[in-house]
Structure formats: C-alpha cells, structure tokens
C-alpha cells in the first residue's frame, strides 16, 4: 500500500534514447513496464515515445503526476504540515483547549498520576485529553509543545548534513584524486562510529545540553552518509553523455557542477534527506530518553517518556501520547521519502 506507484510504469528518463539505434540493446517488453536494471541501454519500447523524453522539465512534471496520484504522499504531507505547524505555532493546537489549568506551564503536583486524588487519577479525561504526568503537568499541552524540539532538530541537522554533502560531496565526486581520497577516508573513519554511540559519548561530557548542542552533536556524527550519497551521484552523473557534451563545448567546471550535475544528481539526495529527518528525530528522542539529549526544563517527547519510566507500566498514557506523536512524525517523513522516491527516482528503489 505504501508503494501504490510501484507498478505504475513511469516514463523513463533516459538520455540514451535519442541515439537508440539498431545497435542498442533491444527488448520487446519489460513485463512490469520498467526497464530492467542494471543495463541503461534498454529502453521501454512501447510506452516511451520520443516526445515524452525531452529532459528535466518532463522528469519533474512526470514525477509530480505520479506523486499526486499516490495517496500515501497526501497522508504524509498532511502529517508533516501538521507537525511543522505544531512546532512553529503550538497555540494553533492549544487555543481551543481548556484542559491545562496552568497555561504558564507551571505544573501542580496535586494533579500528578502518583496522586490518587488527582482528577480522574491523572488519567486521560474529557477535560484533560491526554491526562497528567508525574509532575502533574498536562500531557496534551506538553505533547504539543514537545513537537518543537523534535521537528527543529530533525530539520536543522538535515539542513547542515545536506549543505556539507552539497559542498564537499560534489567537490569530492567531481574532482576526485587527492581531495576525494581524503574525504572518503574521513567518512570511513566516521562510519566506524554509530551515530547514537557517538552521540552518547560526546553529549555525556557536555555541560549544557540544549536543542543546538544536540543538533550539533547529531550533525557531527550524522553527516557522512549524506555526503557519500551525493558523491556517488556526482560520480555517476559526471559520466553521463550530456555532461560530457557540455564539457566538450567548453563549459566551466563551476557551470557543469551547478547547472548540469547538481540538478540531475540531487533527486536521491532529496529523497534520502526526507527519510534522514525521520531518523534524526528518532535519534534525538533516543538520546533524550537516555538522559543525554536535551536537558530539563526543555520539553521533548523522548524526555517525557524518560521522566515517566518508573510509572509507565501502571500509567501507559505516559508512554502512549508522546510515543504516538513521535511515531506519527517519523512515519510522515519516512512515507514522504518513499513517495518521493517512487515519483522522482524510480531507479533508486
């Protein structure tokens, strides 16, 4: 279901089609309507006509056509937009809510789930939708506010990783030689340190741990995979005929990279970046849960669950609401990545 577009034969953007002569690999039908990997020469004879394969513009519009018809794209888009609004303007989810007796964020221990006399025992009720936590804070308010750190860290870290990948991945892939060897060796070293482990080590010796510190640490350990992807994209795009053609026409290196290689090699990076946001959100939550992520009094979903540890078995709502918020957010980015890949990067599947 997540890949309803799987079987949709999308127009294959194939630069070789133009010179597809009698010598070219010939195949009557690819049964599922796609060219079979890994040979690039094969063209899908019947459903790709020459007019359809005109270039970048049609790739994007074709992708958008596929994307639009994918219900999972819309589901994930709604989730992502909802979460971004929650992160930027939590009031949008709070103004109609009257459950929090302390809008200033001051919590009352008398409401705690530990207090048998708390309203409804601190459990979810019609006034307090998500119930109260151990400190007597309203869980709905906290869950809404908690979106900010998750979403922001996910986006900040991914932005940094993409920028690093765009600059150094492109240079490394394009120029090769010493620079490439150096960067590749460096990523080899980084790959030896799993993000969570590195994060635990570095964060456990850091004094202050706010959103920016956690984002910094996750960037420090998370960047190499994006760079590797960008680099390999640049290397394969560099060999394409249209780049060779531009080069032989005297296009400068800068122009080749910016005008030709980047636009054609970036789709897998965009797809990966979307999924990467999801995995960074998970990583942040895990670090906060372990107690090395954002520190109190910050509100984060991981931290909420961490604080509830001792009571989770008795009061599952302490786990359920922040857990669901996390899962839905990550789900949104994962599914969006899948949908984008189906639409724009059929080869990457």
């Amino acid at each position, binding site marked *: 279901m997540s890949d309803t577009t799987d079987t949709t034969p999308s127009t294959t953007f194939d630069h070789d089609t133009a010179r597809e002569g009698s010598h070219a690999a010939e195949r009557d039908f690819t049964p599922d309507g796609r060219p079979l990997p890994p040979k690039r020469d094969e063209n899908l004879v019947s459903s790709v006509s020459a007019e359809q394969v005109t270039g970048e513009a049609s790739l994007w519009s074709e992708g958008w056509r596929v994307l639009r018809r994918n219900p999972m794209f819309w589901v994930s888009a709604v989730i992502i937009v909802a979460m971004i609004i929650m992160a930027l303007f939590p009031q949008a989810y709070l103004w109609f809510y009257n459950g929090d007796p302390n809008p200033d964020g001051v919590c009352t221990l008398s409401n705690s789930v530990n207090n048998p006399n708390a309203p409804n025992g601190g459990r979810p009720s019609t006034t307090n939708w998500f119930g109260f936590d151990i400190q007597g804070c309203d869980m709905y308010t906290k869950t809404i506010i908690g979106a900010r750190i998750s979403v922001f860290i996910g986006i900040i870290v991914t932005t940094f990783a993409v920028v690093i990948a765009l600059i150094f991945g492109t240079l490394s892939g394009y120029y090769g030689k010493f620079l490439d060897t150096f960067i590749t060796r460096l990523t080899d070293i980084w790959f030896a340190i799993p993000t969570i482990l590195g994060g635990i080590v570095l964060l456990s010796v850091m004094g202050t741990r706010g959103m920016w510190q956690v984002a910094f640490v996750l960037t420090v350990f998370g960047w190499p995979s994006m760079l590797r992807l960008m680099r390999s994209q640049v290397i394969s795009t560099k060999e394409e005929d249209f780049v060779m053609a531009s080069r032989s026409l005297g296009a400068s290196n800068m122009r080749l990279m910016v005008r030709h290689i980047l636009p054609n090699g970036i789709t897998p990076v965009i797809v990966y970046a979307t999924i990467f946001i999801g995995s960074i959100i998970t990583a942040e939550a*895990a670090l906060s849960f*372990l107690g090395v992520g954002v520190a109190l009094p910050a509100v984060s979903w991981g931290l909420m669950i961490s604080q509830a540890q001792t009571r989770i*078995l008795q009061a599952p709502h302490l786990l359920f609401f922040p857990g669901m918020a996390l*899962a839905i957010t990550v789900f949104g980015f994962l599914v969006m990545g899948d949908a984008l890949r189906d639409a724009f990067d059929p080869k990457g599947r």
Partner: protein
Amino acid sequence: MFRYIIRRMLQFIPVFFGATFLLFALVFAVPGDPIQALAGEKPLDPTTKAVLDDRYNLDDPLFVQYGKYMGLLPQDEIEADPNSDVAGFAGVLQGEFGFSLTRRPVSDIMADAIPVTAKLGIMAFVFEIIIGVSAGVMAGLRRGSFMDNFVLLSTLAVIAIPVFVLGYAAQILFGVQLGWAPVNASGGSFNELILPALVLGAVSLAYIARLTRTSLHENLSADYVKTATAKGLPRKRVIGRHALRNSLIPVITYLGIDLGALMGGAIITEGIFNVPGIGREVFQAITRSDGAVVVGISTFLVLIFMISTLVVDVMYALLDPRIRYE
C-alpha cells in the same frame, strides 16, 4: 579473495585509530575540565579527581594522552591512588577502557556483562535474519498480494516507532497485560531475553524485510532468473538458489551498517528490560553521571562495531564474486 581480505584488513588499521582518536579527542578536547564533565553536575571528591586526572594523563599533549589511553605508550604510575596497580602498557589495546568514578576499571564492569549482551545481540540478529528474510521473501514473491501489503505496512509502522517506545509497549502488552513474557530480564536467561531480543531486532527486522522484498522482486525480473527458468530448473531452485542468493547481497551489506544501530538499541533495550548486560551499565552510568564508564563502554562498542563490519565485508566478498576484483 585472499588479497581482498588482506587489503580490507590493512584499511581497517587507519580507520581503527582514526575513529578511536576522534572519540578521544571529542571527549578530552571539549572546553573546560573534562574530568569534571565526566562526572556531570556532581562535585567530585579530590582523590577521585586526582586519580582520573592522572589516569587520563591530562598534563600531556593530546596525542600523548591518546597514546597512553590506547596503550601504545607506557602508562605512568598512578601516584594519587595507592590501590592502583596500573603500570606499563595498559590501555584500549590491552582491553582497558578507563576507570569509573568509583575507581573500578571499566573492563571489570564489562567482564560479567559482555556475555549477556552478546547473547542478546546474537538472538536479535538471528530473529532479524530469519523473520526479516522470510517476511521479505513472502512479500517479494507476490507483489501486491495481501501478504505484501501487510508486510509493507507493518514494517513501516515498526520503523517509525522508536525502540524505547516499542520496548515499553511490548513490556506493557506481553509482560503486564498478557503475561506471556517476564517484564524483567535481570536473570539474563534465554527465555527472559526473547522479548528484549525481538524488540532490539524489530527495526532492523523491518528494514531487512523491506530490503529483501525489493531486492528479490528486482532479481526475479532479472535476465539470469529468466535463464534459470529457461534451463528447466524447478521454481524452488530458481528462487532459492538463483534469485535469493543475489537478493541477499544488499541484505548482508545492510547487516553490517545495522550493527551500529543495534548497539545503540542494546543500551536502550537493556535499560528498559533490566538486562544485566553492558548496555544496562551504560544506561545506569548515564543516570549516575558516571561519564567515564559511558565513554569507556561506548568506545568498546565502537570497536566491536568496527570488527563486525570487517567480518560482514568479508562475508560480502564471499557471496558476491564481483566485489573481489574491484
């Protein structure tokens, strides 16, 4: 083949020192007093501080500190600690990963815990491969079937749920509500570890299932599978021998990368289920603000990760002859 393994092992050496130095430098090059940082907010008693200062050779230049930490350079006598018997070469390469704030060697803390974690990890790994690959094969063989959609949706859900949420949810559901599994795995026995191992392996299991599915489906339409069918081989052999073998190559690659996630996951899972492994030691050390233990054990885990990656790479070469000649 042999040359490939040798080359791969030679490449391992700079990565090994690079990664350990990176970690060491990040910890000890942070601004401020690293020893105080290891202890968090808590005030440190002077003796312990002196011992740790001495132990991590903070007066030396960073490279010398690192050399001593790794056991490449001789360790100084620790004067401040009369109980210390540390002398000569004793560092990471000799299996010493530093001292806790209670002055207990980290290697000591790990000694009892490692077998439990190894057991948990292997169980998780086996679950991942068996369940993940079978689910992937079932889905990949019949694309678009009910089974396929079920596998796709359930794996997506599992991937989206963070491992600690999954852990507690499993504990509540299977431990408390249904009573199928013990909530507490503090004994570390096989039965107790089944649930934690499933939780630990769940996310990777889901990835493996999806990867196997895609890869198998792709390979099923590959030319050589058509050839195998045209050879008149039974379908079982076409799939099991020809298509699956090729499909598992990316899965093996994934397993290598995945080990890293498994280690981070082990810390969380062991913490939740109270499994007496090294993950729980890290989990508890974080709570006690015993940074030295956190850093020590994490470094050990990074080493294990590096070695496992090496093993996976060699396996990869065994499975895919093309790689050996690259």
